[in-house]
């Protein structure tokens, strides 16, 4: 409530909406508590979790919408608010959504409080001890909320929007990850690794600071894997939308804040996937033969497999890469590949040196062509080193760009167990806007050239991918890719969710 009230400072009639929301929330909390038993039994026993998750997700959507709205109207509002004494047209719909958020938050937490109090009263058989305790608790809550509100009010207007946008962004991400946890309990979402770490020793969820952080940014001492994923995704989606709709040259430019949120999102998603059970092969990316000189690229990518029932899956792989375009025709990078065997710890598996060589000017000939050369040195004694070469082809026709990679891979040395393998990667994309492009990608592995097996032994996956490039201030960009590939043969994984985040910095 404190955050919402501070965020809507100066908006006409906001007290009304917040009060209405609070009242609605309290009423809802009482009703929910009253029907708690029925709710628990609904939907075959998971009704309560689904209800909680639903309430939280509705709040996330409202918070996200609020932030996006603020991004697109920030400049106008700042101007209005600096005019002394003038109240600003906040927009009824935005206030309405804030009211709903307050109501939902109060309802969520409130219903638990009511149940807890009722349970305690039922347990001890008397209300006498409950009421003073409850009153103290309520008082403390009002104190903290008030402190938050007045503390936020001290911030000058021009920073207030940025601060509250940040807080709301984190609040929304925290709520989304809480919702994910409920859905895991309801067995609707896969945990993707339950209780990935336990930071209770450092900061317990039961401590006051822990609880405050839990409410404000969604701190969880023992998060499930999917909670991290959802946290990062929420930051990325809301942050991305905020950038997309941001008013140009706005004084209250949320750009840097959102950029940081996106970077954090990428790191969180990356860290999460480090722990997650995923597919065996190195992560897939379609390479363009075009090199951009003078750009530093830091990239993280991974994938995780859904319904993977392919035998011999070796845990997951993960790649972190840093590279630079040294000349208009040569890009070079080094990367580390991490892998986790099932039941084992995460370890480095290989380091590699990768080069992309653009053969001629883009558009100069009928097709753009390049070469990809990579040497991968295994850091595990049992594995062989690898040499990988690709032919990169690209052609743009109107707003469509088609890219094809022909891939050859060979293990080297006395630990080599396989001969030269051949595969491909293909993409057709529609360049709608720089921030959002739609593509169809396919990846395939024919296997060893000397011993090509039947179709069912080969691996082929195809599916839709979205990608884009978001400005991140000072000529930097964040590129992303997200897609879902379905397997076409018995040997392929049934489904593969792939993701990529890359930071481009001109140097």
């Amino acid at each position, binding site marked *: 409530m404190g955050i919402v009230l501070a965020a809507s400072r100066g908006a006409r009639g906001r007290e009304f909406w917040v009060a209405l929301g609070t009242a609605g929330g309290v009423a809802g909390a009482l009703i929910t508590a009253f029907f708690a038993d029925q709710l628990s039994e609904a939907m075959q026993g998971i009704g309560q979790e689904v209800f909680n998750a639903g309430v939280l997700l509705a709040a996330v959507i409202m918070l996200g919408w609020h932030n996006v709205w603020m991004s697109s109207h920030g400049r106008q509002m700042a101007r209005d608010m600096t005019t002394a004494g003038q109240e600003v047209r906040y927009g009824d719909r935005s206030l309405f959504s804030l009211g709903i958020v307050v109501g939902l938050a109060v309802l969520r937490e409130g219903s638990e409080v009511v149940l807890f109090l009722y349970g305690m009263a039922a347990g001890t058989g008397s209300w006498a001890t409950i009421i003073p305790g409850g009153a103290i608790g309520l008082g403390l809550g009002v104190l903290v909320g008030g402190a938050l509100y007045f503390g936020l009010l001290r911030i000058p207007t021009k920073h207030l929007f940025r601060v509250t946008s940040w807080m709301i962004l984190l609040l929304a991400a925290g709520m989304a990850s809480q919702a994910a946890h409920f859905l895991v309990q309801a067995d609707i979402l896969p945990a993707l690794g339950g209780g990935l770490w336990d930071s209770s020793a450092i900061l317990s969820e039961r401590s006051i600071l822990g609880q405050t952080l839990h409410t404000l940014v969604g701190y969880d001492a023992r998060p499930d894997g999917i909670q991290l994923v959802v946290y990062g995704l929420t930051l990325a989606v809301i942050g991305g939308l905020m950038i997309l709709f941001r008013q140009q040259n706005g004084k209250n430019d949320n750009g840097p804040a959102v950029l940081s949120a996106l970077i954090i999102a990428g790191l969180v998603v990356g860290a999460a996937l480090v722990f997650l059970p995923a597919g065996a092969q190195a992560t897939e990316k379609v390479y363009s033969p075009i090199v951009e000189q003078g750009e530093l690229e830091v990239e993280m990518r991974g994938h995780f497999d859904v319904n993977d029932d392919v035998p011999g899956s070796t845990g997951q792989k993960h790649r972190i890469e840093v590279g630079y375009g040294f000349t*208009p025709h040569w890009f070079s990078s080094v990367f580390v590949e991490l892998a986790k065997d099932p039941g084992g710890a995460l370890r480095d598996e290989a380091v590699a040196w990768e080069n992309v060589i653009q053969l001629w*000017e883009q558009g*100069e000939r009928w*097709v753009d*062509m390049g070469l990809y050369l990579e040497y991968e040195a295994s850091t595990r004694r049992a594995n062989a080193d690898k040499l990988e070469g690709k032919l990169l082809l690209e052609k743009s026709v109107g707003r469509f760009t088609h890219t094809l990679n022909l891939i050859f891979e060979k293990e080297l040395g006395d630990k080599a167990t396989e001969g030269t393998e051949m595969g491909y990667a293909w993409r057709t994309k529609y360049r709608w806007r720089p921030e959002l492009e739609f593509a169809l990608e396919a990846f395939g592995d024919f296997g060893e050239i000397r011993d*090509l097996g039947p*179709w069912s032994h*080969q691996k082929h996956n195809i599916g839709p991918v979205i990608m884009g490039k978001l400005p991140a201030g000072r*000529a930097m960009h964040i590129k992303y890719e997200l897609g879902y590939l379905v397997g076409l043969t018995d040997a392929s994984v049934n489904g593969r969710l792939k993701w990529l985040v890359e930071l481009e910095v001109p140097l």
Partner: protein
Amino acid sequence: MRVLFFPVGFHRGRFHSRRFAGALVFAGLAALIALMLAGAPARAELAVYELTLKDHRFIPEELTIPAGEKVKLIVHNQDDTPEEFESYELNREKVVGAGKSIKLFIGPLKAGVYNFFGEFNMQTARGRIIVE
């Protein structure tokens, strides 16, 4: 899938794999060479257009080129800081060093207006290519 998909691998199992693989690689190389030869441009025939960057502005700010034709575009950077010539519509992005020149190949394009800008000086370095 029991279809004979792109003669790599056979439904019934391995079949003259090594000889076949060799033929495949040879065919691939031949296609590659054919592609390169076919794509070799007759550079003498291409029309050349020029843009100059001075004081972080493009001169001229508007350029007209014919539709359906590939042209060569040369960008001279007369400033003392690098600039990046970029256009989403043209699908081109290339850095021009201070005092240097770069060449780009554009087209064939459909009639329309294609905006471009200098990424490092977006406020002032803007222009458009009109294709008609």
